[in-house]
């Protein structure tokens, strides 16, 4: 059984994950990385790429990406798109790099996972991204969503498990 993360007296955050749980997490994180990797990488202006600025960067049409990369100006699409052009790439890169770092920790053989505080903080962020992504797939953001009609799909079980896991990491770093 997985054991919740706890803060040790040495300031490390330690928990236990089952091998199958680690496999599920790695798979989800890889999917997240794939989704966040910009499609236009090879078509990008080399200078713009160097300074990290995208060219035309419209709001994503994918419902999951819309939630992961929201508009910064709620009521001003023009300002939102301009801001996105200058910042979206860095936001994607940051999320991808945290997801990849988490995968490399999860690839270790030991079921007991020992994190530094910084690593645990990055895990909490990646787990938030995973829950936002899965929550969007489950329709949790839809105005018509009814929480009392909770589905019993495998995705819902994974989502509930991620909720438990993120809660345990936050509790450990806040303790």
């Amino acid at each position, binding site marked *: 059984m997985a054991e919740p993360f706890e803060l040790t007296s040495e300031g490390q955050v330690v928990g236990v994950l089952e091998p199958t749980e680690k496999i599920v997490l790695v798979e989800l994180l890889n999917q997240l990385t794939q989704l966040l990797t910009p499609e236009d990488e090879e078509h990008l202006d080399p200078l713009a790429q160097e300074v990290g600025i995208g060219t035309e960067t419209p709001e994503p049409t994918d419902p999951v990406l819309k*939630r*992961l*990369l*929201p*508009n*910064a*100006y*709620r*009521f*001003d699409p023009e300002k939102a798109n301009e*801001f996105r052009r200058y*910042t979206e790439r*860095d*936001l994607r890169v*940051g*999320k991808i790099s945290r997801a990849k770092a988490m995968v490399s920790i999860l690839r270790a053989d030991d079921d007991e996972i020992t994190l530094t505080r910084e690593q645990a*903080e990055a895990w*909490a*962020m990646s787990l*938030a*991204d995973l*829950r*936002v992504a899965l*929550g969007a797939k489950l329709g*949790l*953001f839809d*105005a*018509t*969503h*009814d*929480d009392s009609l909770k589905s019993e799909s495998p995705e819902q079980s994974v989502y509930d498990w991620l*909720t438990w896991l*993120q*809660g345990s990491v*936050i*509790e450990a*770093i*806040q303790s």
Partner: protein
Amino acid sequence: MVAAPIEVVEPIVEEGKFTDKPWICIVWNDPVNLMSYVTYVFMTYFGYPQEKATKLMMDVHTLGQAVVNSGTREEMERDVTAMHSYGLWATLEKEM
């Protein structure tokens, strides 16, 4: 933080509090992020004490949104980007 439909409501700003700082960063409620996580983010990123961070989180949760900081447009753009890194839904706008 709740499953209730998200309504568009004008942000609530305490009178006279941000008069010299024309831009505000607003965090909106969402049905996914944990209350403990939102409080943690407000404490960690903004450096707010637990009491203030918890109050802001509860405002987001119960009122649908909270003004979490104010400052120049550039500062608020930085805050909004940070909130997006944390997976929270934030926007900035010029204070009314």
